[in-house]
């Protein structure tokens, strides 16, 4: 890769090893299965945060509608699990056996057509990956081809996630309404509610997360990643150099959407339900803060940031529920005003030089570091 940087520097490999050991060895040994399941739930948000680092940090596109893709992935998985849970034997007390219970309560007598593909597991997996990509492509193509960006894009994506929430809540018979799709039991006959299953799903989640991290790392250090950074800094100059700016933006937005959808699907599997509360504006913006706390230019930071914010949220909500919103609000303001580069920025300026010296590697050339210059926005 003549124009790129190395895939991972020595300290990058060290970070990866630390993350992998922390998530795969330390946490499963230290915490009990209930807490581990909770960490697994947090990690599903980290998929979204990874996507946001890609499209917001590197691409300069802030999407406030990632909850929409998270929800799509989650709902696809939930629909499959719900159909499996609503087999004829399980639902024989209903007036129409074989359809999900909430449909029966809403006087729907046949399975709606868009539910039918979710009877098959492979089709569900394909839907989880393809549906968000199509949606992101349509939104991206419509917006970026017309050179709409910045706050306009943020507002439109926010509106789209709001539309999806209203739609899900309103169409109770087809989507389970405000309660969401609940009471999910098995995946291909395997009980997903036991502690054992939760532990296995946790490991699956971590491995998928690390795979996504490596994919994202591959993208950022390729020529494509360099173009993204260039575009964020001086879009016109990249355009005049002959690159199709819109296509790069569409690509990175689709990638972020797919990450979010994988996170959503893993969320449904680990938590056992999906509801519109994870789709709307509030969760979408909250997911942005995960990436911001971790550092909007740092893939590793996104994961740690997500864990930290969610850990703080859970412990605050348990002991001082009224203080949490104050804390979260202050976090938004503090990160923006005082630490625009988040945890990763603090790490880079304090610990990183020592680590690098210890490893004996030369510091990376300045131009390769995406956080050196302030974002153009």
């Amino acid at each position, binding site marked *: 890769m003549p124009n790129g940087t190395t895939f991972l520097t020595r300290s990058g490999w060290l970070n990866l090893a630390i993350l992998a050991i922390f998530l795969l060895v330390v946490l499963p040994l230290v915490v009990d299965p209930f807490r581990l399941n909770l960490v697994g739930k947090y990690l599903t948000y980290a998929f979204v945060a990874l996507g946001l680092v890609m499209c917001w940090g590197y691409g300069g596109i*802030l999407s406030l509608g990632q909850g929409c893709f998270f929800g799509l992935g989650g709902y696809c998985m939930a629909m499959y699990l719900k159909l499996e849970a609503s087999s004829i034997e399980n639902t024989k007390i209903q007036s129409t056996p074989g359809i999900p219970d909430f449909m029966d309560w809403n006087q729907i007598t046949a399975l709606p057509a868009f539910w039918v593909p979710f009877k098959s597991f492979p089709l569900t997996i394909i839907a989880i990956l393809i549906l968000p990509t199509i949606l992101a492509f349509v939104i991206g193509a419509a917006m970026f081809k017309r050179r709409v960006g910045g*706050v306009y894009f*943020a507002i439109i994506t*926010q509106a789209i996630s709001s539309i999806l929430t209203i739609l899900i809540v*309103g169409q109770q018979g087809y989507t389970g309404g405000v309660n969401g799709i609940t009471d999910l039991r098995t995946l291909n006959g395997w009980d997903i509610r036991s502690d054992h299953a939760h532990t296995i799903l946790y490991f699956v989640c971590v491995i998928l997360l690390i795979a996504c991290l490596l994919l994202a790392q591959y993208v950022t250090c390729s020529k494509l990643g360099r173009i993204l950074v260039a575009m964020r800094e001086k879009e016109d100059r990249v355009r005049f150099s002959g690159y199709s700016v819109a296509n790069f933006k569409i690509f990175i937005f689709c990638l972020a959407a797919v990450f979010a959808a994988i996170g959503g699907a893993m969320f449904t599997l680990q938590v056992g339900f999906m509801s519109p509360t994870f789709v709307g504006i509030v969760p979408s913006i909250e997911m942005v803060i995960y990436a911001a706390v971790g550092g909007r230019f740092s893939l590793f930071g996104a994961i740690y940031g997500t864990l930290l914010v969610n850990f703080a949220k859970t412990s605050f909500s348990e002991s001082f529920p009224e203080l949490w919103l104050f804390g*979260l609000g202050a976090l938004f*303001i503090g990160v*923006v005003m005082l630490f625009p580069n988040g945890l990763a920025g603090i790490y880079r300026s304090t610990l990183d030089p020592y680590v690098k010296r210890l490893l004996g590697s030369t510091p990376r050339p300045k131009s390769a570091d995406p956080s050196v210059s302030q974002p153009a926005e």
Partner: protein
Amino acid sequence: MLGGYTFTDLGSIFVMQGFAGLILFSVFVLMALGLAIIFGQMGVINMAHGEFMILGAYVTYLTSTFFQAHLPGLFSIYFFVAIVLAFIASGIMGLIVEYVLIRHLYNRPLDTLLATWGLSLILQQAYRTIFGAREVGVELPQWMLGSWHATESIEIPINGMIIMALTILITIGVGFLMYKSRWGKNVRAVVQNRAIAGAVGIDTEKVDRYTFGIGCGIAGIAGAAFTMIGSTGPTSGQLYIVNAFLIVVFGGAQSLLGTIASAFTISQTQSTLEFFLSGSMAAVITLLAVVGLLMLRPQGLFTLKVRR
């Protein structure tokens, strides 16, 4: 617009439904006016705008309880006092927020968006701590409660007419301020070319601060109007923020006329559709239509040429 002003039932339904849309339109316009001024002038996305509105609503609530307890004789005019107080409270709050927060984040619109979102969370929790999580409603004076029987079958509530009159008054006031006053001239100069406006001696920072204050103050008035059609809770503002932003963007960010036109289109579409479909589907179709149109015409309905 009403398809023939007949005295049949259908005609009455159209009139009343149209009027219901107009009340929604009034609240939307009042909210969007403040947002449009702030966004058009400074490029600042104020996600806490709904909370400024709710501040106005709570001030109105406090004024009404104060009048009930201490000045029952003047209760019939409390609303007008409340409007002024709501404007002042939200406006001062806006000035403080601009000074402490927004001022440091100019030229970073996405960061402003996140910071003001954080502010909105803090304000929501503050309202919840101070006023409780339950929604509060104001008691209207007797003369505002009735409705005007235009014909035998058409009834128009008086408080709706008051909100409309208020909206028209505020809109004219803002129009006057922006297009006839010296201050408005300064604002428009800053919108069109900030650097040159500064070079000819306009104190752009001061213009920014007062614009933000006035925008927030108008949100406060929107809140006062809001108490007449709904009850006030800590998170009521959040329900309106997406619509208000879409109105501003759809109208074309720098155009007051566009804001009014798009608020009218969106509120009328929604209330007309609500008659035929369920409320949620009406909202979905309206929002989808707006988003679709914005994808085709991203600059909005009306645009102003601005040098960036």
